[in-house]
């Protein structure tokens, strides 16, 4: 054996040892249980103003009972990232006792089975993220078990106003309460940004416990909602098994988009006249229509649309409402009801009547 071969062989052995060690500590890929943690995908648009809870950046929703705010996909991000989610207060409101403002990521039970929750082998998990805010102080991150009404909560601080800060929080494993192994909501990560006394007058639940609201945000000092212009930005969110935060696991935009589309997809027309679906008249005012999926959906989606018409033989017919019938892995079937009589048995296509036409299929958690 030549010297060179021996050295190559040694190097390979060393690398395999490192790989094995890393593998023992957790998966080398697909470590991050969060989809779109870099906030790149925003199918719904780049800004929304609301007083209610809203998804905007895919997979991340506000969850709030107070104030008016703008939720946007921002291009301000720490080095290595191109986007963040930003929530900014537009109407000041001091939190009443039952109020809260938070930012949430929802997880399916079948994606959490690796945590072995509710068993003697329950795993710790570590959340890492970048945060930026003009409101310094102490805030709370909660890991919530929706199946068993249990939660664990840890505090972190925003130390500097207007600068990106990297945070890591480890939640210990829970030997009680198994996550359901299904396609429904089991786990939530909730960043509390403001909370009334109904959530702050107990002792922070730094160990897993049965949900008791007064223990969920105790110690929070930031009063995010009380001043116009207060903002919170977040990106680089990673949730992984173990007690160590590893570097953020970047995926391509295409990978993230496909993962997001299990939960939501939006078909934008971009031009008048674009064909968006096809159907057949099953009655004098009803079109059975197939809306193809780009990705199979988690559950039967809610259907909404804007500026679409049914067209046959050069004539447009107005759609007055829709009636979801059901889904397959390939698409959603719905009866579209027309405002005027159509030719029963005739084939139609669904067409954009403006450049802003869209079809939304929403299976979010």
């Amino acid at each position: 054996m030549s010297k060179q071969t021996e050295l190559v062989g040694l190097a390979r052995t060393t690398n395999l040892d490192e790989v094995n060690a890393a593998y023992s500590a957790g998966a080398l890929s697909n470590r991050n249980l969060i989809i779109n943690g870099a906030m790149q995908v925003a199918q719904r648009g780049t800004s929304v103003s609301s007083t209610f809870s809203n998804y905007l950046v895919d997979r991340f929703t506000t969850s709030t009972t107070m104030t008016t705010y703008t939720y946007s996909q921002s291009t301000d991000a720490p080095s290595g990232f191109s986007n963040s989610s930003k929530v900014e207060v537009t109407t000041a409101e001091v939190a009443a006792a039952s109020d809260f403002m938070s930012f949430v990521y929802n997880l399916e039970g079948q994606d959490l089975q690796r945590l072995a929750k509710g068993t003697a082998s329950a795993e710790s998990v570590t959340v890492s993220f970048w945060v930026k805010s003009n409101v310094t102080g102490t805030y709370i991150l909660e890991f919530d078990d929706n199946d068993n009404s249990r939660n664990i909560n840890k505090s972190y601080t925003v130390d500097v106003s207007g600068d990106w800060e990297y945070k890591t929080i480890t939640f210990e494993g829970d030997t009680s309460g198994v996550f359901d192994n299904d396609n429904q909501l089991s786990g939530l990560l909730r960043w509390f940004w403001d909370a009334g006394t109904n959530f702050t007058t107990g002792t922070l639940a730094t160990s897993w416990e049965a949900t008791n609201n007064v223990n969920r945000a105790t110690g929070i000092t930031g009063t995010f909602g009380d001043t116009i212009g207060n903002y919170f930005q977040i990106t680089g969110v990673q949730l992984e098994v173990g007690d160590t935060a590893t570097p953020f696991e970047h995926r391509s935009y295409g990978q993230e988009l496909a993962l997001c589309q299990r939960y939501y997809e939006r078909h934008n027309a971009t031009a008048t006249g674009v064909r968006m679906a096809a159907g057949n008249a099953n009655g004098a005012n009803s079109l059975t229509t197939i809306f193809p999926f780009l990705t199979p959906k988690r559950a039967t989606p809610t259907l909404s649309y804007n500026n679409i018409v049914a067209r046959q033989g050069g004539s447009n017919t107005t759609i007055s409402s829709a009636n979801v019938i059901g889904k397959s892995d390939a698409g959603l079937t719905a009866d579209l009801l027309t405002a005027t009589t159509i030719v029963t048995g005739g084939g139609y296509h669904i067409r954009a009547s403006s450049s802003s036409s869209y079809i939304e299929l929403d299976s979010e958690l």
Partner: protein
Amino acid sequence: MNNMNITAAQYVTDMDGNNTAIQATIDGIEMSVPLDPANRHYAEILKQVAAGTLTIQEAT
């Protein structure tokens, strides 16, 4: 801990008269909501009905 603004909800039926979906206005947008318990809009509609804050109108 959700807060969805549902301002209208009405069943829609198939040709046999069976309820197949709910036509709802949620956050100002008209939507067709399937009767699937795993659908978040349907789950929220049921929650608000149970709380007495929403009534689903029968199909016309």
